[in-house]
């Protein structure tokens, strides 16, 4: 039984460079959870969100949107953002609080769990609200074990994995409330110094449907050229194994796996990657795995949906060529 006082699902709509894409996925998960529990779905915006953001969240399923409007909350000051969210949650007594599994989402969720005495589960990929209460599933041991987690507290905080729930569609004109919430910031010891956006045109691994990834089998930094060319042809993000990153062929932010990013793309193309357990940890939930490898017996070829045996240097440009050819044909 859920505590009567703590009910309602809250989506914390953290923006990333003006995009609320992660929040749209949370709204899908949150809506279905709220419907099952027969509770309300709320969302909260922080900082100085664009004027249409609250409406957007309503049209995508929120019954109510709280706007914690204050310039200071638009900066990455987790102490302050957490304080504002704690204040709202204590007043509204939400039962389930959902964050994206991003660096910021994870840290804020961690702070809220302590301040609200709420159980926390991160990287949740399945929510099951049954008779016996809420059960969620998350991976541990680098994806080798699935844990089923229950909560003993009246409220709980979760970070949800990206790319698991589809973005909530917009229903133009959908009704919902928007409420501005006053917040008086107190001094914190976190000072924002500067930020630098990722190179323009670079697709973030975490939000990419398609990922082309390269490993030690590429042989050299130049080996990534055909990987990038294929990624460009597909509109895919570029990933890498640790071996390729450690060799200095590609920056760490591209690393997939236990030490890098955990992703769930629709397509993961592993080029010259053997598929060690720590790499699989980051991508084994991809819907379709393509492996291109000269060793047909390696773990990645065994894990693959589609295994292509051969020399990656030879096959990659041919695959890119085929795709260009079909695109050209489609246009003509």
């Amino acid at each position, binding site marked *: 039984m859920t505590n009567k006082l703590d009910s309602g699902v809250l989506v914390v709509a953290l923006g990333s460079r003006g995009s609320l894409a992660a929040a749209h996925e949370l709204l899908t998960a949150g809506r279905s959870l709220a419907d099952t529990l027969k509770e309300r779905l709320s969302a909260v915006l922080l900082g100085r969100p664009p004027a249409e953001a609250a409406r957007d969240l309503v049209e995508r399923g929120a019954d109510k949107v709280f706007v914690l409007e204050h310039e200071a909350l638009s900066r*990455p000051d987790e102490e302050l953002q957490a304080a504002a969210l704690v204040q709202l949650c204590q007043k509204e007594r939400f039962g389930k609080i959902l964050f994206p599994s991003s660096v910021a989402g*994870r840290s804020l969720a*961690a*702070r809220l769990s302590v301040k609200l005495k709420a159980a926390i589960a*991160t990287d949740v990929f399945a929510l099951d609200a049954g008779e016996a209460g809420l059960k969620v599933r998350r991976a541990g041991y680098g994806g080798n074990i699935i844990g089923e987690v229950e909560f003993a507290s009246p409220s709980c905080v979760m970070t949800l994995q990206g790319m698991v729930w589809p973005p909530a569609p917009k229903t133009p004109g959908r009704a919902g409330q928007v409420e501005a919430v006053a917040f008086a910031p107190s001094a914190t010891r976190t*000072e924002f110094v500067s930020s630098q956006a990722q190179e323009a045109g670079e697709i973030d691994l975490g939000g990419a449907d*398609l990922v082309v990834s390269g490993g030690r089998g590429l042989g050299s930094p130049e080996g990534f050229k055909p990987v990038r060319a294929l990624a460009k042809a597909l509109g895919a993000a570029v990933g890498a194994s640790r071996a390729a990153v450690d060799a200095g062929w590609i920056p760490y932010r591209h690393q997939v796996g236990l030490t890098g990013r955990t992703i769930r793309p629709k397509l993961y193309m592993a080029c010259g990657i053997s598929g060690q357990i720590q790499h699989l940890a980051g991508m084994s939930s991809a819907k379709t795995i393509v492996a291109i490898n000269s060793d047909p017996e390696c773990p990645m070829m065994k894990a693959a949906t589609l295994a292509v045996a051969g020399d990656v240097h030879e096959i990659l440009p041919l695959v890119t060529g*085929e795709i260009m050819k079909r695109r050209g044909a489609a246009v003509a």
Partner: protein
Amino acid sequence: MAMGLNIVVCVKDTPTSLGVHVDSATKRVKHDGLQTALNPFDEYAVEEALRLKEKLPGSTTLAVSVGPPSAEGALREAMSRGIESAVLVSGPEFAGSDTYATSRALAAALRKLAADKPVHLVLFGKSSNDGNSGIVGPQVAAWLDWPSASSVKKIESVTDSAVTVTRMLEDGIDTLKLGLPAAVSTVKEINEPRLPSLKGKLSAKKAVIPRWTAADLGLGASEVGSAGSLARIAAESAPPSRPAGMTVEGATSAEKAAKLVDILIERKVI
């Protein structure tokens, strides 16, 4: 430039292999006989503490862990790399701790340490390789009302009163200045960990590691272990196996490439 800083590294003893198995009766991961060591991600936090100490003479380094008696192994490993002292928070009362209870115990240990001499900076790894949560750093910070930063790839500078760090985010990087004391969770990019030295190993082996119980930390029985935890693992299982794949056949590489693209288009993957 800061004078000496008192740096604490929070570490965990974790399985060396992730190829663990579930006991079908208990539906929990079998821990008996699992070999454990310092969580590989904590090596970066340990290394960063050592580098700061080398840069800022007069600094001290200490490692702390919450865990069973065997977790001493991880602390000795940190010491073999150069960490000067260690404390193990341990006792049967801590069994079954979730991140909420673990972070509370760590925060209490930090308070106890700070009562003796100030703690300036607390370092964490990215996450543990078994739990994979990556939240204990900011949770400890929340218990102590400290600033914190996760995913830190560089410590830009440290003064007596602040640490400036650069974080790796999903869509770029940013730089924050945190007033001390602060909690910083690291990522692999931050450094290249050194290996334990022979001398380090010898002195780590001989080191006396104090054990603190919940009572030593001023924590009650309901505040630690499973009683003090809010999240409970109901069951663990192996992930469902992936549907069997197929080999893309072809007499030449060109044929294989064409076939692959055919299938991807046919299945509406691209």
